[in-house]
């Protein structure tokens, strides 16, 4: 049984269709990265899964529970780590955890708090108010709060958005530990590197639906080939390279100050400019080709 099953789910906000016929299965025990640009429908999908948005059409099933009718039972078995820090800042670290242990009906609140403190590596700071913690500690606490009841499924909504690289790496380590325990994870992100490092599978979302899905290596092979040639230079030169490559039927995308010729191994002799830097194709190439958006 899949941990999450969505069938033809539609969610509209007035004239805007945020989720548009979404089909999504998340098998138990995997980490699925939901990758998409801002406005792709990732956060709305997360809200649908927690019963905070009601679909206009379609079927949702989470851990065997039909949503939205049986949403409360589903929420009891899943943990959610939100995009925004919504900890109670004046309250101590351990009280923040204890409140959520109670909300999740944990029988031994003290043991659950101790376990979560160990996970967040905050045992020494348990009696400190949250606003005395560093940004990284707060983020670890937020993650531990979502895990205080040891859920079978965890939803991570942009877990490292806006964090500096060191804190991001710390969180990736924690999420990696969760993966190794077999917890099912659905992680929305718009960071390519995060999806590449953590996800067993990646689903690329755009305009409210999944447009590609698979293991990162499989997606790269299918959509971007093996190699990407990047050419740097002044705008006139880049326009010339783009036009030349497109005339040869090659796929070209903007890549910041460069143009990237994706699948450059398919180019004939002399079709790739000599100054090009050739590298292995990446998930970022796939993302930009499929969504038309610059990746982060």
């Amino acid at each position, binding site marked *: 049984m899949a941990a999450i099953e969505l069938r033809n789910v539609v969610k509209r*906000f007035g004239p805007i269709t945020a989720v548009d016929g979404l089909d999504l299965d998340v098998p138990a025990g995997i980490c699925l990265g939901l990758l998409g640009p801002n406005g792709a429908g990732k956060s709305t999908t997360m*809200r649908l899964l927690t019963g*905070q948005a009601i679909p206009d059409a379609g079927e949702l099933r989470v851990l065997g529970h039909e949503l939205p009718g049986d949403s*409360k039972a589903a929420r*009891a078995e899943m943990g959610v780590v939100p995009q*925004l820090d*919504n900890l*109670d800042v*004046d309250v101590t670290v351990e009280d923040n955890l204890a409140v959520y242990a109670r909300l999740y009906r944990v029988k031994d609140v003290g043991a659950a708090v101790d376990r979560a403190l160990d996970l967040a590596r905050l045992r020494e700071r348990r009696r400190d108010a949250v606003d005395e913690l560093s940004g990284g500690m707060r983020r670890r606490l937020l993650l531990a*709060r979502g895990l205080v009841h040891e859920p079978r499924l965890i939803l991570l909504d942009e877990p490292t958005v806006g964090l500096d690289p060191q804190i991001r790496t710390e969180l990736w380590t924690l999420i990696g530990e969760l993966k190794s325990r077999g917890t099912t994870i659905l992680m929305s992100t718009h960071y390519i590197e995060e999806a590449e490092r953590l996800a067993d599978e990646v689903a690329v979302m755009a305009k409210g639906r999944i447009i590609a899905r698979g293991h990162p290596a499989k997606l790269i092979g299918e959509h971007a080939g093996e190699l990407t040639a990047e050419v740097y230079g002044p705008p006139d030169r880049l326009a010339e390279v783009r036009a030349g490559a497109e005339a040869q039927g090659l796929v070209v995308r903007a890549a910041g100050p460069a143009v990237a010729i994706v699948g450059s191994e398919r180019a004939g002799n002399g079709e790739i400019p000599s100054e090009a830097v050739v590298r292995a194709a990446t998930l970022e190439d796939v993302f930009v080709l499929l969504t038309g958006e610059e990746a982060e």
Partner: protein
Amino acid sequence: MSSAGTRTMRRLEPAAIAGVMSREAANFRTYWKGTTFSSVLEPIVYLLAFGLGLGATLVDEVNGVPYIQFVGTGMVATAVIFSSALPAMFGTFVKHRFQNTYEAILAAPVDVEELVSAEMLWIGIRSGFYGCFPLLVTMAFGLNPAPGMLLVPLFCFVTALGFAGFGVAMAATVAKIDQFNYVTALCITPLFLIAGTFFPISGLPEGVQLVAQVNPLHQLVELVRGGAFGFEAVDLARFAFLVAFALLMWRIAISRMTSRLID
């Protein structure tokens, strides 16, 4: 281990309500001193200003009750509305719009009905407690203890539930926090002034008297005075009115918050 397992979850689960209230209690422990200080000091200031000031210069008694005791018993309603409607309005708005607290709570097995019920209950309990302070202060100014006063926390609790529901509903309705100024000016202040706290409503024009009769604060004032100076049969109807007010506001608050929190 998922704590709640796969059991069916009911509506209005006590565990969910207690969990939300435990969050309020944890936060309250960080600011109770300031809130309690102002809740004790405010009635003293009002009593000194009105009870001693007006009482010493303009009014000796109202219906045979020394003016300071008349005001002191009426001040219970003032304490209740200011410790229920205002915290419910501002607290709910801040938790929803600025702190995203409700998003986190609703991601747990808690529904809007339980969330609103818990918020109202917490405020009701707090106001039931703070509402007694003016009565205690008035005792220092000569009010004799009476057995009926033991019911005052209950009267305050029920009234505060209603005003907490009102505050939550307002928080779910306004678009910006400064719009609470309209609520305060158009609703709370008039209710406070025609409650019969500082003067008997019998002196007001007939139309205003009619409005005062459906003012929950006026019913509370009369019940508190009943507890202090002797109940009448009509006080049962007054209490029933407050219960109905609380129930109505509870359902309105749930409806408004559901519209606000669930897309």
